[in-house]
């Protein structure tokens, strides 16, 4: 059994009421662009791109925007040269934090992240200091209204899930990456 991600469910509630759609769109577009850059434009052979496109569609992003973001990644359209950068940090109460960024300027990003941490009772950690505690998992959130806990539990355990937790008004299903899309 693995732990769970409380932030994933808190964030979902926030997203429901989040008026800052622009930020969500920007995030998804960056993710699509970098996914296409790293793994090519075909979502069937590029699971990172597949997930990003699913998220774009769930957010009602127009198909044209998705297409342009992919073309920027593959170089068919001129675009910004994005890179992944991951930072590790400590928050209040000794909480371990991992911050995933996509940036065209790593120097600016790290300096900004340090600033945000310092202003909010956190501090940057050395690479490897906290990341060993984390593992990549697929998290699926399903509203509780539609099904009973027992019924869903039997479905997902049959399908090979690691764990399920009830968090407020959603079920949070934890599975390995290998079976997330199945």
């Amino acid at each position: 059994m693995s732990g769970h991600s409380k932030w994933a469910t808190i964030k979902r509630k926030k997203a429901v009421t989040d008026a800052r759609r622009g930020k969500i769109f920007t995030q998804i577009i960056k993710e699509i662009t970098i996914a296409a850059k790293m793994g090519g434009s075909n979502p069937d052979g590029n699971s990172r791109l597949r997930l990003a496109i699913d998220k774009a569609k769930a957010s009602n992003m127009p198909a044209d925007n998705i297409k342009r973001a992919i073309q920027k990644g593959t170089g068919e359209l001129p675009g910004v040269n994005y890179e992944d950068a991951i930072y590790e940090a400590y928050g209040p109460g000794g909480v371990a934090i991992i911050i995933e960024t996509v940036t065209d300027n790593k120097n600016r990003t790290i300096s900004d992240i340090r600033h945000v941490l310092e202003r909010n009772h956190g501090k940057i950690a050395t690479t490897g200091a906290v990341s060993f505690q984390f593992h990549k998992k697929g998290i699926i959130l399903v509203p509780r209204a539609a099904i009973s806990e027992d019924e869903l539990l039997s479905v997902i355990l049959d399908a090979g899930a690691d764990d399920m937790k009830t968090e407020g008004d959603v079920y949070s299903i934890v599975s390995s990456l290998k079976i997330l899309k199945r």
Partner: protein
Amino acid sequence: MKKAVEAKNLKIDSAEIHLVADNTVKVEGKDAENLISLMEALEEHDDVQKVHANFDIDDKELARIGTGN
């Protein structure tokens, strides 16, 4: 997993890859308030795609802090 859930005609709110910690740290009081502010400030930065953390905060405590409502 996604297909198994969809086969039951259930609506999926989100299906994403997250970094999940082996163990969680229980946080409450002032630390919990500061932590939520920090997480929100990080998420709001334009270059940040995703933030993961190993904390656990009681739902009651979350309601008190007033996040997500």
